[in-house]
Each structure stands twice: as C-alpha cells, then as structure tokens.
C-alpha cells in the first residue's frame, strides 16, 4: 500500500521507536519487522530508514554502537532506545491513540466490521 508522504513521515518515527523499544536491533531487522507488523503492506525505501535513525540519534532518543554480529562475523551498527526515547515514545503513543480512537468512532458508526 502506498501511504501519502505526510502520513509516512508522521508514522515512521513512532514505528521505528516502538520496534527498537522491543530490544536492541539494526537497520535491516527494523525494515523486516515493520514489513512483518504490517503484513507486508508498509514498504519503505530501505535507504531512507538510516537518515531517520541518525536524526533520532541526534535527538538522543536512540543510542548506537558498532558490534560484530555473531552469525555473520560482519560488523553492524546496533540501535537501542534511550530513556528520553522511551518518554518520547509514550507521548507519541498517547497522541496516536487519540487519533485512532477518534477515527474509529467516526468510522465505526457506519461500518464497524472493518475495524477489529
């Protein structure tokens, strides 16, 4: 599914933060996880993920380190969420809940079977 550019920009930060909040991980895994979570409906341009990660790191919502991966013996950059990142994620969760609730109500009146 092709999301509009604005929605993509707005949703990618909470998505990425949430995935990383599940545990330390790296870029390729994040892309895979997002695809999995959306049943393959959300397909990002992989390269665009990294500038976003770097921005979140600059904002100190994430921290990163280089580590050699055990299975491939290649070095990878791993990201983990910081305390500040946790707080930001909570805020985002609240905001998105407000929006999804509102949408659910206004759409749910007419055809609630589409929402689970």
């Amino acid at each position: 599914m092709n999301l509009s550019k604005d929605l993509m920009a707005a949703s990618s930060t909470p998505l990425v933060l949430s995935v990383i909040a599940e545990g330390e991980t790296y870029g390729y895994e994040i892309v895979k996880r997002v695809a999995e979570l959306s049943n393959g409906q959300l397909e990002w341009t992989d390269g665009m993920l990294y500038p976003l990660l770097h921005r979140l790191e600059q904002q100190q919502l994430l921290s990163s380190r280089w580590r050699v991966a055990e299975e491939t013996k290649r070095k990878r950059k791993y990201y983990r969420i910081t305390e500040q990142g946790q707080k930001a994620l909570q805020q985002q969760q609240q905001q998105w809940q407000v929006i999804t609730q509102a949408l659910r109500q206004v759409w749910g009146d007419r055809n609630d079977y589409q929402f689970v």
Partner: protein
Amino acid sequence: MTTSSFDMDARIAEWRAFLAKHAAFDSDDHDELESHLRDHIDALTQSGLQQDEAFLIATKRLGRLHDVSREYAEVHSQRLWRHLVFSDASGSSGTGWLGYRELLMVMLLALAAALMVKLPELGGWSLTDDSDGWFYARNLTLFAFPFIGIYWVWKRELGGYGVTLVLGTVLVVSLLLNLYPLVPESDTGVLAVLHLPLVLWFIVGVLYTGDYWRSLSRRMDFIRFSGEFAIYYVLIALGGAALTGLTLGLYAFIGYDVEWLAQAWMIPCGAAGAVVVAAFLVEAKQSAIENIAPVLARIFTPLVAFILMVYLLTMLFGAQTFAVQREALILLDLMLVLVLGLVLYSVSSRDTVMPVGVFDYLQLALIIVALIVDLVALVAISDRILSMGLSPNRVAALGENLILFVSLSGYAWFYYQFVTHKRGFYALERWQTGYVPVYALWAAVVVLIFPPLFNFS
C-alpha cells in the same frame, strides 16, 4: 550459492565507490549501508535467488542514491561544510592519534617559528628599533622558512637529505646576505630582499613535492598549493589584524597602551607562525572543499583581460606621450605577474580531459594581450638602459620581463595548439611546470650574484 561469473565483493566495492561520490555519506554510513545490503542479499539468496539477482533487488530496495543522499544531507547538514581542522586533519590516513600528532607537530613548528623571530633580540637587535629594520628586512623570510621546510620534510618523510637541504639553504643564504656589505636601502640590497622569498618558496616546493621536483603531477600540486596558501595566509592575517585591533582597543579602555605588545610580539610572531599553520591547513583541507584560487582566477581572468586591452588601446592612441615612466613600468610588471598568476591557476585547476571551451579562448586572449603589454615594457626598459646605462634595477627588470615574455609566449603557443586541437592540454602543463624553476633561478641570481656584480651599490 556460488555462482561462477558473479563476483559479489567486487560489485559491492563498486557500489561503495559510487556512495563515496556523495559528500553526505561518511565512511560509517558506507559501512552501515553495506551491512544492510549484505544482510538483504543473504536473505534473498537463502530464499533461492541467484547472487546477481539478489544484488540487483537489494540495491534497488535501498532506493535511488540521489534521493537517499539528500535525506542524509538534511540530517547531517554540517557534513557538507567539513570541520576540517579536527576531523579531517590527518586526511585519509585515519583520525585520532595520527591527527593529533600532526596537530601537535604543527603547533610546535609554528611556535618555534614565532620564537625564532624573537631570537635576534638576545643578540641585541630589536624589532621595534628602526635602526635594526634593515637587519630584519634581510632576514625576515629566513625566520619562517626553516619551519615550513621542516614541516614538509616531516610530512613527506624525506629524512636526512631533506633536513640537509633546509639547513643548507638557510646557512648559505643567511651567511651571504649578512656578509655581503649591503647598505640599507641600496638597489641591490632591496632587490635581494624582494627576490629572496621566491627562491625560498621554490625550495619549499621541492620539499612539498616529496620527490624532489621529479613528477609533473606533484609540481602541479605545488602550484595549486601555492595559490591556496596565499589565500589562507591572507585570511589568517585578516583575522590576526582584527584580533590585534580588538586587543589594543580593549586595553585602551582600561587605561593601558599595549602597542609595544602588538608590535614586538603579536604581529611579528603571528606572521611567522601563520606560515606553518597556513601550509598545514591547505594540506589538510585539500580534498575537503573546492579550492578557492582557481575560482578567483576564473572571476578575474575576463576582467583583467578587458582592463589590459583597454589600457593598451588608451596607451597607444590616447596617451599624451609614449614614454613609460619608471613607476608605470613597475605597475605594468606587477600587472603582468598578476596575469601570470591567473594563468598558472587556471591551468592547474583545469580538467585535462575537458573539451575546449569559451574560457580557453578567454585565457588565450588574456595571454596575447599580456604579451603585447610585455613587449611595450621591454621596449621601455631597453630605451632606459640605452639612454641611462645599466643599473641593478634596470637589469633586474629587463631579466624579469624577458623571462615573462618567454613564459607567456610558451603559454600562448601551447594554448593555441590546444584550442586548435593540435595538441593535448598535457603539453601546456608540462610547459608550465617545466618553467617554474626558471623563475626561481632568476630570483637566485638576483639575490646571490647581483650584489657582487654591481659592487653592492
């Protein structure tokens, strides 16, 4: 999974080289993106794809590099303005220890150059004393030269031979200049002082090339280096002047006059130390930012060509008398040196494989006008020599104009051959770098041979 004809590592290396062309990615990003690419390729091949197919899909999924790099640039905007002093100090050889070691070396050498200026005071000469002005004028360039020389010996790892060259030059030049009975403000004395920097700068060039002036490309690098050095030095001098002025003003407000401090320490020591610092900066940022000297050359080439042409026409048709006075002659020669500088930098910055363009014709026009101006100057000097006899100044001017004439003729000839597609640009570069020692040689003659030749008059 081992397909025969597809070399994955080679393809990835190519792809990385392609990344490296975008300034927005740094080497960490290269590693991170490569790691992503390899993970994706592994996953794809495990699900049954051939390696080449996997490579294609994985690179495609990363997105168009142009767009991705624009995203990177937005996040890392400072990367496009490289922080050269601290992060790029060691160039390609890695950061960290080596970078700091170089910085330390540069600071030590700059400090040594600064203190060297004060050394003669132990022997009773004083910077602020007017009567010692002539002593300082003769030796000024020698204070900074050994240290910028040693910097290149160290940087290019030239070893004992390089050190010998630096110390030998210092020894010979300082002995001769101070043993020659040069009277203050005598013609030969002033000429020697004016030409000495050129000789020493050429020695710096020999050291800079790292192979004792052997390869053409290194010589061209030295010419580029010289232009950037001049610009950096002027910038540092401007900064230094502003700082000195502020210091003077701040102290004046609380009732102290620190002009002595500025004159005896800040200005002379700063000027000597800045020589080493400017050399280091040019070397460090070499690959980081577009060079400035060629840009200036591009701006001023058409302007200078136009002004010279108009001036020539005014002189030929409008001037009251054709007699070129001494002062006019000096100005004309300065203009010709400026033209030579413009030509040097335009040539050194030109991409040799680019086809002939408008700028090349402009350049040729500038050279031809300069040649005519040089002819006028030559006629005027010969006229003065014939009517007033030989003097150090006239002979020096004659020699310089002859050298310029030959140089410009060479440029004109090779440029002509280049724009008419008879010869490549390489011939022009060879002419340019081959001729540089001639300037230095002539300067050496003026410094070392003129004084005894003209009885130190």
